[in-house]
């Protein structure tokens, strides 16, 4: 099985039942993507699959051979963080940190969706203004944070969005 993660190709011998999340965590030791619920109900496992944010816990690795996967480890480094990572640092957008990589990957994918002009449930027709707080909150609702850092995550993302 060939997985392409953060630009690196890996040949793996996996049980077909292995999810993308378990392939990353258990086999490639890329533990940035987290297992919070294992059922697509919390968003902690969010990665970018071909640039789109997805729940890696509900994806079978075997079905994604050759598809580029980006995890939080592929976004930035401690020395050179991605603007979204920097936003989270600047606004204390996390506490325990366990949902954080998923939040960050989700935000990166979400900003791309906004750039494509994709609407959300709170988008009003003809609304082309800047990404407001209500939009960020709705679009990020697939990422639960039990520490309740939401009020800090919103400005973190707004900063990364250049607002």
């Amino acid at each position, binding site marked *: 099985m060939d997985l392409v993660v953060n630009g690196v190709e890996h040949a793996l011998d996996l049980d077909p039942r292995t999810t993308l999340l378990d392939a990353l965590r258990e086999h490639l*030791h890329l533990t940035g993507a987290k297992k919070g619920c294992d059922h697509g109900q919390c968003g902690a496992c969010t990665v970018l699959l071909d640039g789109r944010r997805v729940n890696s816990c509900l994806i079978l690795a075997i079905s994604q051979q050759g598809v580029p996967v980006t995890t939080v480890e592929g976004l930035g480094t401690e020395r050179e963080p991605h603007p979204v990572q920097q936003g989270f640092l600047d606004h204390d957008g996390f506490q325990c940190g366990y949902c954080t990589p998923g939040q960050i990957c989700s935000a990166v994918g979400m900003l791309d969706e906004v750039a494509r002009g994709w609407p959300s449930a709170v988008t009003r027709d003809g609304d082309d203004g800047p990404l407001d707080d209500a939009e960020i909150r709705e679009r990020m609702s697939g990422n639960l944070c039990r520490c309740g850092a939401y009020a800090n995550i919103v400005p973190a993302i707004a900063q990364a969005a250049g607002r």
Partner: protein
Amino acid sequence: MTAVTERAVGAPLGRIEGPAKVTGAARYAAEYPVENLAHAWVIQSPVARGTLDGVVVDPTTEDKDLLAVLWHGNAPRLEESDDPELAVLQSARISYRGQALALVVARTPEAARRAAQVIRLEITEEPHDALLTADHPGLYTPEQVNPAFPAVTESGDVAGAFAAAPVTVDVTYRTPALHNNPMEPHATIAVWSGDDLVLYDSNQHPPGVAAAVGAVLGLPAERVHVITEHVGGGFGSKGTARPNAVLAALGARVVGRPVKLVLPRQALFSMVGYRTPTIQRIRLAAERDGTLTAIDHEAVEQTSRLYEFAEQTTVATRHMYAAPHRRTGHRLVRLDVPTPRWMRAPGEAPGMLGLECAMDELAERLGLDPIELRVRNEPRVEPESGVPFSSRHYLDCLREGAERFGWADRDPQPRRRREGAWWVGTGVAGATYPTMAQPSTARVRALPDGRYEVAVAATDIGTGARTILTQIAADELGVGVGRVHVRIGDSTLPMASVAGGSSGSASWGWAVTGACRALRESGSEEAVYDSTEEVQRQEKEGKHAYGAHFAEVRVDADTGEVRVSRLFGMYAVGRVLNPRTARSQFISGMTMGLGMALHEEGVLDPATGDWVNHDLAEYHVPAHADVESIEADWLDERDRAVNPMGSKGIGEIGIVGSPAAIVNAVWHATGVRVRDLPVRLDKLLPHLG
């Protein structure tokens, strides 16, 4: 050496581990690369009461990767434990649905999970009783409530005061079972090396876990090495060793290789503790001017057959308001349910919901502003103990908070403000949390490169402990924070207390302060300080943090859906050590308070004894879209009596009173008093007309 002019404590220093957390480099318990690792899965009881008579592995479905199936029929024997829930796989007795009955160990996680699904349990089921009711025949008064308060207190003539009072309130508030649900599930990797055991474990107290796991395995604590570098939240559910740590150790012992056990989310609802449901009757008696003459607050709660955990639900009522005649009590019933344990502000969170909603109802009855009602009942000393408060700025929080929130223009009448499809209202409630410290030991070493290593077996569960201890040490050593390296999260470091009771900074900071001072005074290269004696000498009564919560809600007139437009907390919590992480702690508690008010409920199915909504799709915690505006600020409070830093605990006070503020605001918006949480649309809809 350059002079240090700025003090670190009080500065908004960013989290030390922040860069590691945002890049995915921070390692949590299940993430350590270990050679030859096997994977475990727990088989939980599908019945609430009965006996496990056998475990059958069907050879036709047996997986080639299956290594072992442990149950009471074959598991190694354990020593007695203070915590019967750590005596895993030792007995046929089934005490609750979800109890760990067997452990599957396999080469892969996929094989372990599948084996757990097909292995057949032979169970003799017995009738069970899992439903808490206010008149349950099994109700009794426990000897004490958590951690060591008397279950009942009474002073004056409560009955007489109620008979004589011109105005009374007699209401019953109910809170459901609530589940901690930290984002990181409880997890352990157990690695044996001879008779030494290494546990990579997610918990709030590494030395406690080492001691507890050591005790059941018959090992001295020093042979159990618990590594807990980063913890994905706990909220009380990781305060002590949970069954996962013992199960992983047993599994690893039997299969002769390291074992990883990550509890599935669903298991967190039953295996690691939860907040008991409560049925609280609150009676208030007052003069017409609002002066309370009597307070009576009694809570009915549940515990398990295995273990008595009695939450201190009405203890906050003992010191909140003045009244000459007063009574508080707790009644408990043992049911065929998992053992309730600590969840963020155990006692205060549900208890202050009842008290602060009842106060709002009294204010309505009296035609008095709810803040003014509280002003008129401010005690000068602790009403029950008579001990003076070390500091109490509750009324200042109410007044300053009211100013900031914009309380003054409020129409006291409910159901007056309509904005489009929404009914809009505001509410207020008080907050309090005890200020505690526990004995801890810290060590500081001067390193050859000019830095200092500070070591204490504390944990940072997201509170900012690592950062705050760095700041405290820097100031005590008179150096910049860059020269301090704090080591925590390891049971082999000097003994620290639990990350619980909002006491971490106080307890560990006290020890760190002592060690740094000793180093400076002695001029040596290493100093160790044990705070036990000083902490034990301290007066325990009269020490509390206070706050006031203000909520603005809107209720959809068509659907009954509730949204919290604004939530504001004003606190008096002693000295704030790091305003950045402190603010995050406050809004964190308030966000969980929002969930408690509107969303969270373990839905018990009495027929199965199970919380049927045991996952994050059905047990709703607040999502991003639920949190519109949450803000917190604090007064400049000095309190030298509490600890050397002058700080009070802040991790829990945000969930105390914030649910009541929201519930009171819902009443103000709609005129409907919802007295059983959570305030969901189905409870409002029939009354919105």
